[in-house]
């Protein structure tokens, strides 16, 4: 195992230990509390909150992936090329519009809870996935595309057997960026009553308890690092399989 892999494993173990038995970490956080306030967040199960946080991130990222990749496929087909500028501007608007503003606007329509958060994260996540999917699909070499056509593949077969597999590593970069952004942005969902780790941070802010703020932040940070590294490892694997990077000769 490399040093990086060792550190990631340690990080994962510490994170799981903390989530399952948070009280055993109380001595670590005690110095950050004042006036005998609790050192460990106990208004809800940290495991439940973390799973809910991850679930919201996952659903929003998956939805953004489906829509953005779908759009990218359409606009890279001959019949869809004219929609490229339009879809570009839509996904750019999604990115520039602050998620907080989306939340504020979505609440009157969707009410408090998970839904407005999902909408905000979804919109915010579209652009990186869309741009990377386009880059991936148009990065497939002309020769390879022509060969696929010349061999007698139908449009769908070319997409499924050649273009998507070759574009996948680049697409995955966009998905990774979006997932990590969604993971940290999801914390603001707590302001509209979505069950996310933002809850822990906000509890800390309102009661002036630095230990809570730090706990919430550290869990989100650890998750972000693990997810980012995991997806990067997957990208490397796919790139190698696609013959895009050098591997040691057999």
């Amino acid at each position, binding site marked *: 195992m490399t040093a990086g892999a060792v550190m990631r494993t340690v990080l994962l173990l510490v994170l799981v230990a903390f989530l399952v038995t948070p009280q055993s970490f109380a001595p670590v956080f005690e110095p950050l509390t004042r006036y005998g306030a609790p050192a460990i967040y106990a208004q809800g199960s940290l495991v439940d909150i973390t799973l809910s946080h991850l679930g919201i991130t996952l659903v929003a990222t998956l939805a953004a992936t489906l829509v953005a990749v779908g759009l990218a496929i359409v606009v890279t087909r001959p019949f869809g090329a004219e929609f490229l500028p339009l879809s570009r501007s839509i996904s750019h608007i999604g990115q520039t519009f602050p998620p907080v503003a989306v939340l504020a606007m979505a609440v009157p329509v969707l009410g408090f809870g998970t839904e407005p958060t999902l909408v905000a994260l979804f919109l915010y996540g579209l652009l990186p996935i869309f741009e990377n999917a386009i880059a991936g699909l148009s990065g497939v*070499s002309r*020769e*390879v595309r*022509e*060969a*696929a*056509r*010349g*061999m*007698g*593949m*139908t449009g769908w*077969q070319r997409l499924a057997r*050649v273009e998507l*597999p*070759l574009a996948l590593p680049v697409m995955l970069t966009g998905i990774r960026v979006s997932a990590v952004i969604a993971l940290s942005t999801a914390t603001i969902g707590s302001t509209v009553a979505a069950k996310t780790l933002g809850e822990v941070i906000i509890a800390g802010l309102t009661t002036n308890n630095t230990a809570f703020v730090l706990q919430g932040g550290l869990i989100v940070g650890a998750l972000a690092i693990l997810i980012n590294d995991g997806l990067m490892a997957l990208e490397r694997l796919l790139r190698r*399989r*696609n*013959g*895009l990077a050098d591997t040691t*000769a*057999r």
Partner: protein
Amino acid sequence: MIEIDALTRVYGTTAVVDNVSLTVPRGEICVVVGTSGSGKTTLLRMINRLVEPSSGSVRIGGEDTRGFVAYQLRRRIGYVIQGNGLFPHHTVGQNIATVPSLLNWDKARIRARVDELLTLFQLDPEDYRDRMPRQLSGGQQQRIGVARALAAEPEILLMDEPFGALDPVIRSKAQADLLAIQRRFGTTIMLVTHDMTEAMALGTRIAVMDAGKLLQYAPPAEIISRPATVFVDALIGSGDRPFRMLALQKVRDHVEPGAAAGLPIDEEASLREAYAECLWSGRDAVPVVRDGALVGRITLARLTALAARPQ
């Protein structure tokens, strides 16, 4: 058989292929030569409808290609793309199996075919089947490109500069392989090349193109002895003509009885090789052998006569 009838392709206002008609009889090799941009690739790609003709028609085996669904037509026609275009994410075996698996051949049949082709191209299936294209040399990649085009046993094979990136030794090896395979399966081939020597070595007929027009379509000997235009003449290279004539024929057909001194030459050698041997060793005649046994000789006088323009 490929029948091309008044085929034209216009881009903007330019006819990139201009009213080309030619027929490649079944089992023959038509080699298309011409300068860069003369429309060779476009002509080839109109046959499998990767480019749709502006006007004119193509028939393969007597059937108009417009009667086919384009992708089904392409599965019947082998295509070797300029610059190989192997799928980098598929193994060598999967690459070769592309068309058979599109045609839903069963697994055992596909596997047998892949191994047969690899063996045919002198690549050990055990070693090469599961390699990725990047783990092959350029020459091996090109051979896999040809194997992929041949996989579904097409009656027609289109090849766009298939041996472009090969060194001269591997190149003549690849040409010999292609000829052997072509004879074995009776494939009708249309092949594009820049190399006149390759064209002479492979073509039963040579099509010379310039600026979209077909200038001449004739067997190699006729192209050399009666070039239709100055352009065709220049393409052959007037200084090379006698040698190209000699290169077209084999010693086998011109053996005379009698003896000669020195190292013998095999009857399968070309007249050009025999001529070179005479000049280089300063002999007036060279002994000829078949399977190592003496069968006669070939004389410098005969070779000189054969190198002259046919009357």
